[in-house]
């Protein structure tokens, strides 16, 4: 405590005097806390060449937002608790990814897929997460499906920053009209092939405005087989 500034702290009489100098302590309190804050800031290690702290964690605002969804409205969260949860999330990601990657390597695959992650979750005890995640993933794939199948012409205007994306030839346009939400398995398979992770001889050249009605994919994934 900054009260020690009064000098001989080992002298018990001084300490007693300090205790009774209530006004002084109070008026100094602001200064003291400011000083300690300043000290704290100056002793923080400067960011080094390693990943900056903010790069290794989820943004704290996002973490807090999720926490608040669970907590009652009157609940408060200490700053340290927020940071701890933030760190735990990164640890969680690393933990699961490590296991998922191990599986990949043991099967001689290079790409960590969503299935690997779900497997790792099961193996590491997060069984309860698997079902909601599977549902989430299925809905995501379906929505991607709709995007790519229904909007062949507008598809090119949309970007997907994640994973390799196959751009279907313009020939997909005739299949747009009246296509219902219930996707066929063939189309789903095609969508899966489009989306990341399945690097099996995808046809980069096939997108070059081929006017053929033939499927650009491998035979077993012919998406338009039902429409020929």
């Amino acid at each position, binding site marked *: 405590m900054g009260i020690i500034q009064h000098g001989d702290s080992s002298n018990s009489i001084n300490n007693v005097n300090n205790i009774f100098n209530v006004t002084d302590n109070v008026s100094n309190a602001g200064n003291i806390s400011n000083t300690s804050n300043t000290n704290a800031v100056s002793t923080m290690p400067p960011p080094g060449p390693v990943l900056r702290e903010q790069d290794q964690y*989820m943004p704290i605002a996002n973490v807090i937002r999720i926490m608040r969804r669970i907590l009652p409205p009157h*609940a408060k969260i200490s700053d340290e608790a927020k940071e*701890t949860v933030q760190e*735990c999330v990164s640890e969680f990601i*690393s933990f699961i*990814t490590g296991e998922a990657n191990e599986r990949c390597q043991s099967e001689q695959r290079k790409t*960590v897929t969503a299935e690997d992650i779900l497997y790792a979750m099961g193996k590491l005890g997060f069984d309860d997460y698997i079902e909601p*995640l599977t549902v989430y993933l299925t809905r995501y794939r379906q929505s*991607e499906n709709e995007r790519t199948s229904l909007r062949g012409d507008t598809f090119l205007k949309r970007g997907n920053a994640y994973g390799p994306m196959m751009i279907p030839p313009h020939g997909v346009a005739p299949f747009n009209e009246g296509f219902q939400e219930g996707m066929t398995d063939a189309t789903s398979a095609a969508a899966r092939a489009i989306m990341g992770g399945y690097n099996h001889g995808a046809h980069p050249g096939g997108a070059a405005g081929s006017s053929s009605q033939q499927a650009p994919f491998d035979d077993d994934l012919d998406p338009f087989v039902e429409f020929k």
Partner: protein
Amino acid sequence: MRQAGTYSGILSGGISGKTGPHLLPLARIKKIMKKSGEDVKMISGESPIVFSKACELFIKELTQRSWMVTMQGKRRTLNKEDVASAVMATDLFDFLVNLVSESGNSGEAPPPLELDTFTSS
């Protein structure tokens, strides 16, 4: 603008039906995944998306369990020690034990609770 129902909102909350905004930034997730090991080479496009939902579930579970400790202490502020206690009391969170104890937890945590009977919603 589409209104998400209570349940479908939980499932699709953040996707907005497309690859739109998620609750957690995908690029950051990908970065953390890559950092988890030297030999993590390629990551499928769907992986960060699965993780964004998984992290949400994880944060919710950790928060719920921590809040139970807070309530036990008849407090309204969830603090770091509550998180540490929840970790100690939950087998599933064993991988976090070192993390919460090296955060400066003095080790004077309240007596361990039986939180494993808690079923997360």
